[in-house]
């Protein structure tokens, strides 16, 4: 049975390459049909904002990459409810569908379900 990997993305979309490169890990895993999960927490939830205008800072819009997750077979996409709330964001108005994890304990239990984890 294939080993599963959870990628936890904690950085805002254009703060260096972290957001982009953590997404690349996930998409590559999806391309190989591996069991991959993706969790957005802390500033990582900013990647889920519906109203991004990265062109203003000459950055790439990662929303297209996020929307590709489903196409690559990555369905286990989560966001930390507390991180969203702290940043004035709500599960209902994000750029992709995510499963919200309302409690920290949910995150701990999520991590426990995976063989490996990478937190970027």
């Amino acid at each position: 049975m294939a080993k599963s990997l959870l990628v936890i993305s904690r950085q805002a979309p254009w703060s260096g390459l972290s957001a982009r490169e953590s997404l690349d890990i996930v998409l590559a895993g999806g391309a190989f049909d591996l069991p991959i999960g993706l969790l957005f927490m802390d500033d990582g939830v900013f990647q889920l904002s519906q109203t991004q205008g990265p062109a203003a800072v000459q950055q790439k819009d990662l929303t297209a990459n996020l929307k590709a997750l489903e196409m690559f077979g990555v369905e286990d996409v989560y966001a930390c409810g507390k991180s969203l709330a702290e940043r004035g964001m709500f599960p209902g108005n994000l750029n992709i569908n995510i499963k919200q994890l309302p409690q920290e304990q949910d995150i701990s239990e999520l991590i426990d379900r995976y063989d490996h984890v990478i937190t970027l």
Partner: protein
Amino acid sequence: MATLHVLSHSPFADSRLTSCLRLLGSKDALLLCGDATYALTQATAPLEALESRAGAFELYALQEDVHARNLTIPAWVNCVDYPEFVELSIRYDRVNTWL
């Protein structure tokens, strides 16, 4: 299934320790290395945050980093060298380094 969380950023400059403590499971462990060992500095908020959870999880610190910073660490913190770090990574089911 239990996780060894590894931190290396200073808790004074960074929110990783706070975020990590929020989601540490009851069987998980935390290894402080590099600047994260500053969290063990006496009479500081990070140490208080760790003390308030003492007993709820195993806390480890990388020996060389404690030594380099001349830290006096509480008795309930276990210092480890590299061979012991390797053993920890085997003892726990996965290693989650907060990059």
